[in-house]
């Protein structure tokens, strides 16, 4: 149990540092910076407390905000993703979620990837709508969501493959 907390804390710090020192400066095609810290929500245990998850996501987003001068945009986006995490899981995993020993690593690859993609989708939607904050720029918002979303998805997938726990 304590191991889980230490692992969680390490992932928290590692993801924030990776985000602000590496991924915030990638600038693919000039302006695309993938946001990979959302992986923390992907790795978070299924049965754990949802209230704690929202609080942790706020801390996560706020840490990234502090480094990227984005005010509280990352915080708002990551608590939104945390709030919608459970509905997304119910949608993706269905009845499997009811089983006592259900783990995300036990689900099929398609399920895992669609879970990750939906998390990223919700997060980016919230982030970019707040960032640009006017509907006159609707096309710009959509373009940014799609391009950044794709790059976040690819990089998160690679990181998840590298750092997830081994399948039991």
């Amino acid at each position, binding site marked *: 149990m304590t191991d889980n907390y230490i692992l969680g804390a390490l992932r928290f710090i590692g993801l924030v540092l990776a985000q602000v020192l590496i991924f915030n*400066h990638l600038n693919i095609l000039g302006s695309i910076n993938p946001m990979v810290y959302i992986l923390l929500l992907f790795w978070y245990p299924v049965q754990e407390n949802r209230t704690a998850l929202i609080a942790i996501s*706020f801390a996560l987003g706020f840490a990234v905000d502090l*480094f990227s001068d984005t005010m509280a945009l990352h915080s708002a986006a990551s608590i939104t993703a945390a709030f919608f995490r459970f509905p997304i899981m119910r949608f993706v995993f269905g009845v499997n979620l009811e089983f006592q020993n259900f783990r995300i690593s036990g689900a099929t690859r398609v399920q895992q990837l669609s879970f990750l993609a939906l998390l990223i989708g919700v997060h980016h939607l919230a982030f970019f709508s707040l960032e640009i904050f006017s509907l006159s720029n609707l096309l710009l918002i959509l373009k940014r969501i799609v391009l950044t979303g794709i790059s976040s998805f690819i990089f998160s997938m690679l990181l998840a493959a590298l750092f997830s726990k081994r399948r039991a």
Partner: protein
Amino acid sequence: MQRIINFILRNKNTLLYALLLLISLFLTIQNNDYHRARYFTSANWLSGTIYNSYSGVTQYFDLKAQRDALLEENKRLQEQLYNRPQAYAVEMDTSSLDYVVLPGRVIKNSYASPDNYITINRGSRDSVVQDMGVITSRGILGIVERSSSNFASVQSVLNSKSNINAKILHTDYFGSLTWDQQDFRLVQLEDIPRLTPDPMKVGDTIVTGAMSSIFPENIPIGTIVKIELNQAGSLYEIDVRLFNDMTNLGQVYIIRNRKRPEILNLENETSDD
């Protein structure tokens, strides 16, 4: 009472989410106001220290480019020095200078978001405070927005809130320099009234104007790449290509105008009347 508590317990996730969302929105909107203190900037102790040690390593990767930029600047300054009409006869008294220049280094750069801020390794300990100009050897960079004891956060010209007085070199036609958030190589010069004949051509140089109490006059900004009229046809909208490569920043100069307090004081008194 019991039912209220039950209600709160039942909906604690939604309530917590709503509360945190409100806090985030409040911070975001409140920080959006120009010159309302932005409390949470990357100039704080924690991120400042981490960025500083990180850039302490990465700065070695572009030492060559930085050296070339400084050489280029030295060459320009030497040329100016040797071509002066007469040599300095009087010894220069540094206490009578209007502008004081302080060197610094960029420890965090950003150019891809709609509101870019740059962090530098000088803070209030080096007497860097809000509203001091920041330039590089090539041209203008931004204005100090907030400083902690060792670091300062600079509002880049690539920021939707940036608004800098600029003019066309060798004329007094001035306008304000803004950014449309599209391309990090291009900024926009606005509010120059339509004149006949056209006072400028594509390729002309844009420099800082004399209306600002932050930057000295004639600091290079960029060259004109496109001139258009606005919809009413009364003002020009000009695209300016920056001299600075905003993606590759190293050494910077922070400029303090000694007379700025006096100018601000005078302006305040005048507007109070």
